[in-house]
């Protein structure tokens, strides 16, 4: 090693390397600073005014001091329903594409389907949901319609992320598992899914975060009103969510403290997404620790 004398080319490579590392860090710092500024702008305006009352009270049209109780509840309710619908199908589709799909034209077609579906603008899913639920089934604007339409929106992303995650599982693990005489499904269940779980959960977090903030779909399918009571589990109630309420307050509300309500709602939304991330990830961290021991 000591006899190694760097050539000019070596030296240039090293300088480039240093410079690149530096600029990657600079880029990272700039992006992080920007994100912090963004979060600060949103949270600092909203968070200080939030109290339990705001989170549980009913929205008001006339009087100052309305809350977001039912819309916050609806947000979670619709999000969970849509995830219940989309996760099994999304994961299933992703696993099929990664593990089962033969390499042929048909599979190519399926993949293009998934990608095209992910480019469908959310408002189109809203129009589709409206046509299916309000026109065809004639049940009006409901939580059910909102949840299903939102699930449509989630599906392609979930499938895509699952496929990538499953593909990333090293081939040695599969071979080892098959060598033990397991069936394909046993291998998927006991080897592939646990190994790729981390990436899949990242995907679910991304999807859940986006779904939580989605408004165009919900306005068309679940409406802009609530049933006016807390804890309404009825699938056929109108289901305004927090993101929709935020849109409404920004766009049309005439109550005097509309601006504060909008700021506070935005802060709550961001906060909830942070919370969701934690909720999904903390168990994973513990899991990772266990694996390492």
């Amino acid at each position: 090693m000591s006899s190694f004398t760097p050539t000019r080319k070596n030296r240039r490579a090293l300088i480039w390397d240093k410079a690149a590392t530096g600029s990657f860090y600079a880029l990272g710092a700039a992006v992080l600073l920007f994100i912090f500024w963004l979060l600060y702008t949103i949270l600092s305006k909203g968070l200080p005014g939030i109290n339990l009352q705001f989170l549980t009270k009913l929205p008001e049209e006339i009087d100052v001091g309305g809350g977001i109780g039912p819309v916050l509840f609806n947000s979670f309710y619709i999000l969970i329903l849509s995830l219940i619908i989309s996760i099994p199908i999304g994961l299933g589709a992703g696993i099929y594409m990664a593990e089962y799909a033969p390499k042929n034209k048909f599979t190519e077609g399926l993949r293009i389907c998934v990608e095209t579906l992910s480019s469908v603008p959310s408002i189109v899913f809203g129009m589709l949901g409206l046509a299916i639920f309000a026109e065809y089934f004639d049940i009006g604007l409901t939580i059910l319609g909102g949840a299903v339409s939102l699930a449509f929106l989630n599906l392609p992303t979930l499938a895509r992320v699952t496929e990538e995650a499953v593909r990333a599982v090293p081939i040695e693990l599969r071979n080892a598992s098959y060598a033990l005489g397991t069936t394909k499904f046993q291998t998927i269940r006991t080897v592939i899914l646990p190994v790729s779980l981390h990436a899949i959960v990242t995907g679910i977090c991304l999807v859940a975060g986006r779904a939580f903030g989605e408004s165009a779909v919900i306005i068309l399918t679940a409406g802009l009103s609530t049933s006016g009571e807390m804890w309404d589990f009825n699938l056929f109630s109108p289901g305004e969510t927090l993101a929709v309420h935020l849109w409404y307050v920004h766009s049309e509300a005439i109550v005097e403290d509309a601006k504060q309500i909008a700021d506070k709602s935005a802060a709550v939304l961001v906060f909830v997404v942070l919370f969701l991330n934690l909720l999904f990830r903390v168990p994973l961290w513990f899991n990772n620790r266990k694996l390492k021991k």
Partner: protein
Amino acid sequence: MSTPVHDLPAQKGTLLQTPVQQSSRWKRGRGSRVRFTNGLFKYYFLFSILALCLVLALVIFFIGKTAILTFKDISLAQFFLSFDWTPEEGKFGAASFIVNTISLTALTLLFAVPISIGMAILIAEIAPKWLKSFIRPILDLLVGIPSVVYGYLGLTVLIPIIRTLSGENLGDGLLAASLVLTIMILPTVSRISDDAISAVPKKYREAAYALGSTRLQVIMKVVLPAAARGIAAAIILGMTRAIGETMAVVMVIGNTAQLATSLFSPTSVLTSNIVMQISNVEFDSTWNYALHMMAFLLLVISFGLIMIIRLISRKRGDVA
């Protein structure tokens, strides 16, 4: 690099029959149950992907059946080649929206791809562990900020800045829209590329380092080509989200049906025009049909862009 991973499932179908059949030595119940679930889930997975395609088929059917009516009243040539969109006077030329949509998407990718991939490399290859586990959740947070908030911040913070810097009166336009979109797709692209880069087997890197490569060389010549598939997927996902995003774009693009002659002229893209007008037109009017046709066109355009990116990434993959 895609070959080894890819080929396995194909062989598998034949391979796995053998061990399962031999298992008749097992207790009969367990053996058949295992075989049954194995078969069942294969069909379940197939069913899932077909369900996804069914949703797409529903979308195409629903949009298409209205869209096709457009051409009862106006000619294909007028719709695709005319730049004049004045529905009140029966002029339905969508060409300017098409061009604008493509320029907006290109501009957005121009900003977003280098930044996102840079972030992905930083997270996956360069940053120490504590920094990784710090940046990742923060990037994810960006996804959860509702588009209305992005639009509002764009309108109240970004546009005044653009207005002072450019000396324009309005500031709305392609630049503002693409900057907002860049921030919106940044987390999607960088997190999925990050996953793809992290999934590159360690031995590739070790082999490259053993040859005396610097980190930059390893990243550029080994890791990125090996992760090209995943990165292409990330870019596609980001791009499709950019094409389909509406609520935020509408607030900063100006919504004027004209071809964007500069980065700062108020203009309109397919999505923003659909959103602005779809709720204000009569159901059975040519105008409504034309808007549906534009939604359909959006599908076609993103389909085309997806094909192009796939082609590029496949060529790259072969070289690597």
